[in-house]
């Protein structure tokens, strides 16, 4: 739960819906628009594994009838949190629908390398192409810091915006919104290099955009290019956000979930052909916000399972597979300790062999711990054997209130079930844990290790939290003077 990136299509849907609805913080230069925005034209296409690309494209024509309007030109691009798509050749501009279709068909479901990361293209966005003069391309970025929210603005937006940190005009909006700057201050701070004539239109848009940023609890919002074409007397303007990247604060779901959802409802998106009375009952009007995994890091079945378990309980359960064929696996309790373990493994020279990052904390039940441990063990034992064997760290700090013996029961149950395989894969198990009732927990796991003849070393609070990592990974570190837990 933290600031999470969202799909471009979702970001645009939220802006389109809330720009005229979010309460502005101070009166803006232009009168509020009498009508709300028309539904946006966002054809968001998902190509799941195993689905026929052609069928999905055909279905798109039914869902988004405007794709078939004759003479229309479109933009097509993958929508998977990929930065600088233009530079990677992942942007199809000014295409007819058949051309865009062919372009997508060529790429959907295929592996694509972006910079150093390989990933499968599964999510595309098709929108109407907006012809515009170069001098109407702006760049705007709002991002949050401790003191407030920075608005970065430059009149030279577009693909070649360059180093915005250097050239953009900046304005810090304080957290306390009663200190929100006046229209003149906004214009003076951000619009120095923009012709006077469009100041009102731009100040109006920036204020409204910021109002949405606050109202929908964004933590990051970048639009480049932002195209603003004022009407003849500059009383209003046509605004197009051609490319957008955004993050929402997932923890604010309880405050903003309804706002996020309604912007993405079929009605708000103008989708007459989607059955409005879907049989599934959702909490809000519209589907719940989705937070996609970063490009190239599609969630595996196991990760999704743990994420689901995490979402359903008060305990915290996290799992990220870094390298399924890695030799070093971790089963660590605690948000801080888990990072310390990953650090120690990396600094021992095993960064590339580190198979997973994960943690369980917040007093999970025995069953949750079992399911978590079982998932990690399954992944480890499913991967091919390694001639040098594997290493499993069952680690953690000194718990504050979790009963170590009871969470360890879950771990022990999982170990028992795969004991023969653990030996077959030559898995060394290193245990370190402390906290309430650790004596019992360590004694139990040690007994199981002996009973099942596992290659296991057990340590308590006398051992440094991640002290077992060098002992296990760096030859010669472990010696007889280091005492194991004797219970």
């Amino acid at each position, binding site marked *: *739960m*933290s*600031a999470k990136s969202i799909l471009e299509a979702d970001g645009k849907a939220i802006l389109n819906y809330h720009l005229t609805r979010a309460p502005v913080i101070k009166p803006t230069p232009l009168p509020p628009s009498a009508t709300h925005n028309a539904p946006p034209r966002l054809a968001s296409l998902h190509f799941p594994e195993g689905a026929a690309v052609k069928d999905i494209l055909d279905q798109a024509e039914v869902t988004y009838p405007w794709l078939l309007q004759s003479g229309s030109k479109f933009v097509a691009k993958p929508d998977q949190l990929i930065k600088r798509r233009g530079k990677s050749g992942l942007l199809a501009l000014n295409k007819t629908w058949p051309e865009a279709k062919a372009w997508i068909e060529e790429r959907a479901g295929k592996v694509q390398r972006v910079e*150093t*990361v390989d990933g499968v293209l599964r999510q595309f966005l098709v929108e109407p192409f907006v012809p515009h003069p170069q001098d109407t391309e702006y760049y705007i970025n709002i991002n*949050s810091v*401790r003191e*407030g929210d920075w608005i970065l603005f430059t009149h030279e937006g577009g693909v070649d915006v360059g180093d915005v940190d250097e050239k953009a005009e900046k304005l810090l909006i*304080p*957290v*306390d919104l009663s200190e929100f700057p006046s229209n003149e201050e906004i214009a003076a701070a951000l619009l120095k290099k923009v012709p006077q004539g469009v100041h009102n239109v731009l100040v109006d848009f920036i204020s409204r955009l910021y109002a949405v940023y*606050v109202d929908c*609890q964004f933590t990051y919002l970048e639009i480049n290019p932002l195209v603003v074409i004022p009407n003849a007397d500059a009383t209003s303007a046509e605004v197009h956000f051609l490319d957008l990247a955004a993050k929402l*604060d997932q*923890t*604010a779901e*309880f*405050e903003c979930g309804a706002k996020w959802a309604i912007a993405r409802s079929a009605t708000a998106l103008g989708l007459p052909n989607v059955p409005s009375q879907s049989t599934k009952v959702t909490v809000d009007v519209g589907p719940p916000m989705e937070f996609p995994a*970063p490009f*190239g*890091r599609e969630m595996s079945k196991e990760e999704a399972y743990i994420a689901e378990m995490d979402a359903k309980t008060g305990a*915290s359960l*996290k799992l990220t597979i*870094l390298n399924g064929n890695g030799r070093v696996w971790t089963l660590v*309790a*605690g*948000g*801080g*300790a*888990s*990072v*310390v373990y*990953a*650090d*120690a493994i*990396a*600094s021992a020279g095993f*960064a590339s062999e*580190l198979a997973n*990052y994960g*943690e369980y*904390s917040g007093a999970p*039940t*025995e069953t949750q711990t079992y399911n978590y441990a079982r998932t990690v063990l399954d992944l480890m034992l499913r991967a091919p054997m390694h001639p040098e064997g594997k290493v499993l760290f069952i680690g953690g*700090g*000194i*718990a*504050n*209130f979790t009963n170590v013996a009871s969470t360890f029961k879950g771990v022990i149950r999982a170990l028992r079930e795969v004991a023969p395989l653990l030996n077959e894969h030559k898995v060394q198990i290193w245990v370190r844990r*402390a*906290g*309430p*009732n650790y004596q*019992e927990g360590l004694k139990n796991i040690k007994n199981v290790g002996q009973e099942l003849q596992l290659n296991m070393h057990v340590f308590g*609070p006398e051992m*440094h*939290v*991640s*002290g077992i990592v*060098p002992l296990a990974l760096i030859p010669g570190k472990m010696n007889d003077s280091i005492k194991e837990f004797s219970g």
Partner: protein
Amino acid sequence: MPMAVPAVGGTPNGTSTSMPNGTASNLKADDNIARFSAPSRPLSPLGEHTLFHPKTRCFVYGLQPKAVQGMLDFDFICKRTTPSVAGIIYTFGGQFVSKMYWGTSETLLPVYQSSEKAMAKHSDVDTVVNFASSRSVYQSTMELMEFPQIKCIAIIAEGVPERRAREILHVAKKKGITIIGPATVGGIKPGAFKIGNTGGMMDNIVASKLYRKGSVGYVSKSGGMSNELNNIIAHNTDGVYEGVAIGGDRYPGTTFIDHMLRYQADPECKILVLLGEVGGVEEYRVIEAVKSGVITKPIVAWAIGTVASMLKTEVQFGHAGSFANSQLETAAKKNESMRAAGFHVPETFEDLPATLSKVYQSLVQDGTIKPQPEPAVPKIPIDYAWAQELGLIRKPAAFISTISDDRGQELLYAGMPISDVFRDNIGIGGVMSLLWFRRRLPDYASKFLEMVLMLTADHGPAVSGAMNTIITTRAGKDLISALVSGLLTIGSRFGGALDGAAEEFTKAYDKGLSPRDFVDTMRKENKLIPGIGHRVKSRNNPDLRVTLVKEFVHANFPKTTLLDYALAVESVTTSKKDNLILNVDGCVAVCFVDLLRNCGAFSPEEAEDYLRMGVLNGLFVLGRSIGLIAHFLDQKRLRTGLYRHPWDDITYLLPNLNNGAPGNEGRVLA
């Protein structure tokens, strides 16, 4: 609203009530309750740098008895004279006091439903430990900050929206309030004050010597790692002076620099420890303070998350804030910069204890730190529940239950998890066999139990039980009263035919009486045979219910000895009078005996035992409850009014006192 118990400075035994507890002594429960008067303020004003001191008093916001008990235990072993917790604020509360231990005796903590009342009662409180959830913590913290007496608030909740966290810290800054958190366990000042669950259980607090102050002040992000630091510091130096976990979120209310500056200003703190993390730039403010000469004390530091730069893809670590948005925010860069600024930064985190030890030893050598003699290790009584969980103690149980268990992950019926009950679709009969007989009975047996329930469910409104229920309902009583008034009618006359029939038939059969002998004996004793006879049904007009039961039992039961015996009895009685048939009660009763005796699940002793316990009556009570509830609902639905029996339906015969002794009523007077 008056407090049920005087909150502070109360008169002893103010509301004492004697508690008869069976012992002969005059000890009252109240005598073991310690009461505290409000402590005086510390005499000399404390420095700006002092956040907590041995007289710090706080409120705990939210109902967290475990955390509060932990704080009180800590206070006790630190030899504080008053508990650090002055009261609990719980807006959903209805309870006025919460009972806590103070050492081995008990004390009562007031529970307030509003912050306002709490503040008014305790002007000495300047700290709040806020356990409100991520949803409500913004509102409650904003409210708490309205009170000028509050100087420090610890926010425990994880998942506070970032904008709300920033709004809180913005207001706090204006008002000069120190916020610790969100998403933290809190902090600890050995010998003085402990926030919530910081430091873990008492045994760990003792192991890390947190009951007396040392010389090392630390700040960490992670709460879990702060406990690890307590351990490391205790093993390598003279101990912790103060420690704060600022929380893993992106916008902690106070950051490293705030506490580092306090430690710098506090003459008793000699070594500073900083445990930073990937993400954010707050470590650099400490670096600036060192470079500009504001912080001069030695700092041992490490930023965790060095692994992030070595991974191919971005990973969101356990903490919401642990994510590098730029090179500056990486742990590697932070460690490098801190080292360059003259911090003591180890090669890896595993080397931190050695680094710390070296710094400590050098300060001991140059006389900056003079190790103090170690005080005696305090003892804290162990909680009963915890001792039991650790398997240290045992006591005889007052109750035993052998049928169901609700303590585990799943409810168990006689050992069968409730999910299996549904997966195997064992039905109500199956559940009855589990709970009544603690075993799975064959399917036909469960089916038979269900048949009995269905057959006995109702017998019309005119029978006594239903009548009572109807009348009670019409008197405006609730469901339970109406149901119970009907059930209380059940006995040897109403609904008792089942038990009676089972008893008589079984007795006769077991004695070896032939059916004819049985009928004759009963007649000689002038006894009706229970289970024989029907008002309208007869041999030629059989009761369909009986036919159903007979057919089912003959088709499914392994043996039907007693049923066959009862049918033979029937053929004797019907030869005398056509309506003296085996009725439904008799049939069910004998079949049930057949079931208990012959299904193979019961030993003969068990079978007799169950019959003696009146299990048949249980069947009738359970079945008929369905009908009685139906009559209740029916009357309610019909909105019937209070029933009054008409006079003309009662014959009034009262004794006439002038005409001799009572008993002659109705006699026609000559």
